[in-house]
């Protein structure tokens, strides 16, 4: 199975996205797919960080939440126009993520993971404690709808197209990044920082850059979330959510943009189907992380690839021996 060219992939993706709503039995699934798309955007960014650069963030849900709350507060409480609120939210996340990245990524080792874990917990505390600003545990409502060209996006179907257009855009950007000198630099850093530096790659700056980029992608998803659900509460953005995002990338396939996206869709849709999971879901995520790392480090992408090879190999063997002419 040869990978299709980047342009062709995007075209196929766009077609599937365009047609899918027609096939859905009811509106509810549209909501699920919108959330899947939002998770997909975050997973794409997180995959650049984890799968390519080999760094890990346990605080991406916090960036997601920080952006959702920022645009929510600015537009609902302070009546900013929606686009301004969204832009300010992404800008804030950019600044905050850089602030965390500079000290933690300057060092080798696992400092980023701990730094982002701590950051996620802090954001969660602040969202709960700063009641005046965030509404505390009961959340913040009254966030206005997203408007495009002066008209509010009211239907779920329209919002679905908005979100998945953003997914495609992020996918294209991430794809172009991966196939550039920066993408190579990221993969080089993943395997050997020493060798990467010896070739003139500024490993520190590159890692900080990709971390900030991936945080900003989470922020974009956060702003889209806020103006879709129009209500935000801290529970959506806690540690469990960060772990879920990491699991999406690991399950889907680290180092494969398709994989991360697929992981996001699967892990968004699956819990909806398996309602029985409830309290068990976090344990399931933990087990998925461990088992993937042990048996399927390339995630679903590797699994599908292996399966495909198994099938084609069998077909070859089953083919009748050719007659010697």
């Amino acid at each position, binding site marked *: 199975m040869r990978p299709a060219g980047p342009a062709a992939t995007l075209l196929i993706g766009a077609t599937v996205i365009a047609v899918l709503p027609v096939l859905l039995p009811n509106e509810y699934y549209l909501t699920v797919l919108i959330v899947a798309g939002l998770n997909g955007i975050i997973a794409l960014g997180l995959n650049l960080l*984890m799968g390519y650069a*080999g760094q890990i963030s346990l605080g991406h849900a916090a960036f997601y939440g920080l952006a959702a709350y920022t645009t929510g507060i600015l537009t609902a409480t302070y009546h900013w126009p929606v686009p301004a609120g969204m832009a300010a939210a992404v800008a804030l996340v950019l600044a905050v993520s850089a602030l*965390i990245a500079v000290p933690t990524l*300057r060092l080798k080792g696992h400092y980023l*993971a*701990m730094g982002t874990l701590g950051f996620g917990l802090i954001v969660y505390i602040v969202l709960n404690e700063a009641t005046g600003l965030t509404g505390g545990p009961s959340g913040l409502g009254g966030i206005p709808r997203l408007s495009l060209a002066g008209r509010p996006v009211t239907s779920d179907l329209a919002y679905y197209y908005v979100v998945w257009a953003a997914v495609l855009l992020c996918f294209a950007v991430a794809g172009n990044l991966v196939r550039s000198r920066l993408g190579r630099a990221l993969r080089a850093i993943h395997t050997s920082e020493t060798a990467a530096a010896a070739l003139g790659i500024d490993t520190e700056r590159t890692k900080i850059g990709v971390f900030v980029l991936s945080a900003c992608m989470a922020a974009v998803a956060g702003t889209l979330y806020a103006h879709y659900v129009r209500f935000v509460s801290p529970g959506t953005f806690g540690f469990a959510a960060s*772990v879920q995002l990491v699991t999406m990338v690991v399950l889907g396939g680290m180092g494969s943009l398709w994989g991360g996206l697929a992981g996001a869709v699967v892990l968004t849709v699956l819990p909806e189907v398996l309602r029985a999971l409830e309290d068990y879901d976090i*344990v399931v995520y*933990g087990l998925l992380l461990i088992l993937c790392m042990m048996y399927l480090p390339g995630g679903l992408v590797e699994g599908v690839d292996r399966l495909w090879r198994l099938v084609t190999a069998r077909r070859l063997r089953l083919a009748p021996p050719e007659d010697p002419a």
Partner: protein
Amino acid sequence: MSDLFQYILSGATVGATYGLAGLGFTVIFNATEIINFAQGEFVMLGGMLAVFAIRWAGAPLPAAVLAAVLGTTTVGVAMDRLTVRPVRGRSAIALIIVTIGVSIVLRGSAMLVFGKDAFSLPAFSAGEPLSILGAVLVPQSLWVGGVTLGILVGMKAYFDHTIAGKAMLACAYDRKAAALMGIHVENIVSRSFALSAMVGALGGVILAPITLTSYDVGIMLGLKGFAACILGGLGNPFGAVAGGVIMGVLESLTAGLVSSGYKDAVAFVILLLLLFLRPAGLFGRAHAERV
């Protein structure tokens, strides 16, 4: 004035447990260069297992403590054998993900088995709280201080005077060379997980009578333990404990003088500031990394 002293005393008590969690990080990091994200879960398990040994089996306190420590140590060894060993030698991120996975599974399982309530353990010894300079000191605080000191002394003896301890230090210094000298590195790694789980569990057990324990205390304890060992210089056991005590005191002062809601933010702020200003820690020295 007596308020201030009170904050310092209770902060130091809680901080000793952060120090023990940090000590656990240090032991595993020294042997393997892995940051074990399940370290906080060891502390949680120590407290919870002791609580439920009493509730379910009606065990007397000393037996419950022993069972909790042994149980957690077993979990630590199992974690190494079943999950860490199979991914050794892969990229650093694979190891982090595995230890995160284990921490989540342990926490989730604890929630399913023990429920979401918070529990308390009876104090180790009865007795009136002592009054020092107007501050109140519960007897359990003396237990915390004593056990922590005991662990430090034991650890020093282990590393200085036993073959196993020296082998662990050798692994920390140069794994390849240690293997060439005939040290069974896999065993050392298992032992480091056992030791670190044991230390963590002890921390959890001695703290449980003072603060409540529940299935989800591990994340915060883990994070604070990590901040403690960065504060003391990663890899330095004594620094870790000292770092934990300092952090506990700062946290308690924040809770008392600023706001209790934000006290958990202290550890994180300290962590980031340290990484900015002094990554080698208060007591650490920057050293070159060998290639």
